[in-house]
């Protein structure tokens, strides 16, 4: 997902509220270049990924070359240059979670979500990935889905878990409600 791809010919403009947030982000820092990462997060939250036009926009705002922004985009695993599925499912692969069965969980999720690791399902609903340690090692295996952190997802419960995720596709309030302590949304 880190390859440099040509931007699709017609990408929509960033939302006005995204553009409006930029000056305040830059003003937080003694040097404007420091705002590169927060601006990229902002773009990705708006569009879902980062285009070359976006990088040029960020570069102009913080006073660097587009190449210097591309360097940042390609260095950090969280930034993407191409769209992903409607739900981004990230299973922790590192030792603590692996000891609790994350490899078996991944195999089961590949079946249940009809999606291979590192890929997006043919219907565009899910992108499934292995990620490295996400700092919740006592509750493994953990699965980070968009903004929510699901703990203790046992390999044998993969089918049930996948069904839960599929149900969120029809939930119009998904991601809109304020998180409640102790829930996956709070821990995300």
């Amino acid at each position: 997902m880190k390859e440099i791809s040509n931007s699709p010919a017609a990408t929509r403009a960033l939302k006005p509220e995204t553009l409006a947030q930029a000056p305040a982000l830059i003003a937080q820092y003694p040097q404007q270049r420091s705002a590169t990462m927060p601006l990229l997060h902002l773009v990705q939250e708006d569009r879902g990924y980062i285009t070359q036009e976006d990088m040029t926009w960020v570069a102009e705002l913080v006073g660097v070359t587009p190449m210097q922004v591309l360097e940042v985009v390609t260095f950090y695993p969280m930034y993407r240059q191409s769209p992903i599925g409607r739900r981004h499912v990230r299973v922790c692969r590192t030792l603590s979670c692996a000891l609790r069965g994350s490899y078996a969980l991944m195999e089961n999720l590949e079946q249940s979500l009809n999606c291979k690791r590192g890929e997006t399902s043919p219907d565009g609903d899910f992108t499934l990935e292995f990620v490295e340690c996400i700092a919740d090692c006592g509750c493994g295996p953990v699965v980070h889905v968009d903004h929510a952190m699901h703990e203790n997802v046992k390999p044998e419960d993969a089918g049930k878990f996948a069904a839960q995720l599929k149900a969120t596709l029809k939930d119009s309030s998904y991601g809109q409600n304020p998180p409640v302590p102790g829930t996956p949304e709070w821990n995300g």
Partner: protein
Amino acid sequence: MPAVERPLIYANLRQPGYTVDIDCYLRNGGYEALKKAVALKPDEVCKEVEVSGLRGRGGAGFPTGMKWKFLDRKSGKPIYLVVNADESEPGTYKDRQIIYKDPHQMLEGIAITAWAIQAKQAFIYIRGEFIHGAKILERAIAEAKAKGFLGQNILGSGYSCEVVIHRGGGCYVCGEETGLIESLEGKRGYPRIKPPYFPAVLGLYNCPTIVNNAETMAQVKHVLAFGGAEFAKIGIPGDSGTHIWCVSGLVKRPGLYEIEAGKATFGELLNDLCGGPLDGRKFKAIIPGGSSTKILKVGERFKGKLANGTEFDWAMEDIPLDSNSIAACGTGLGTGGTIVLDDSVEMIQALSNLNAFYAHETCGQCTPCREGSLWLSRISKRITTGGGMETDVPLLLDIANQVAGRTICAHGEAVAWPVQSAVPKFKDEYLESIRKRQQGEAVPTLKLI
């Protein structure tokens, strides 16, 4: 006497009904330590922290008071405080609790530290994946500013400090302090070479900078609350305060256990507090302080002499939980992220899992680390998939020996140490794993790579 916990950092957040808002924190004695701090001169606050014997909680265990002393106060340049909340050492999840459940405790420590080192600007570098955690902190900062604990004219003292949250991008090497600083400047997180880039002299924007771990900030609050001399009585001489043990892996009750330094052993932690191994299993090894620390094998004897002259002869279970004792056994307390492996684990798979992690996370700046981590990962993986040769085992060690000590930052050591410690201890088992696959025999079912 069975091991007992002594919650200090987790005392509040473990109370039923405890919430993240400032009113709840104030009801539980919040920001009283800050009031004590601003009534003292900055130098006096530094002295309290020095006397307390507090050691940083980010993994290296460097004395916090001494770190602050290295600060270049005469340069005339602004001084920055950077809080490392990038928690990314595998096996570690202690800072997450503070951020998500008791953020004001950390903010109070930040305000105290900023006053002590006279920083007018603080940054919290938080893991990019802690999306809601960053929002919790932002809300908490706004609350603290509204009440005069942060921002302009803190508690009427005339002193001001702004705190900014900076989200990372999912990169392990940004937990290294100079990599973190580069990242905060809007660049790739390539660690800087030391000298000359010691953060206390040439840190953020080439200005004097103190980088402290998130939990260290929470500990500083308690140093001021107790007073340095009283705080030093918690734990043992040379390692004061509490350590939060993040136990994960194959144990009955994985979780977070806050224990006074040196007041319990690994055996007590794993058998009493964590309930011992899973049913029908036996412990085989532990990685004591995050994945980069050297592995300890069950059944090994650790013999030697402590700095105070005491001779010891311990099994893994007997090692006291303080940084000096653990270091004397050839490993480190690190971040307290203890990963437990039992007899269902095939050790080459466990090693391969970690090698894959370090190969993924190397920043690529230094050739030994970039190439070495990749080869370690490939070779250990090929053993697990049946393509291994007997010569691969000494080869792993040979590569690791060429990485450690030859890189800009400690990622090189982090790559090498798991291999350097595990190969001599589990060599026979690795050879057995190779033989079994060559002869088509059954291998353990738990898949780790």
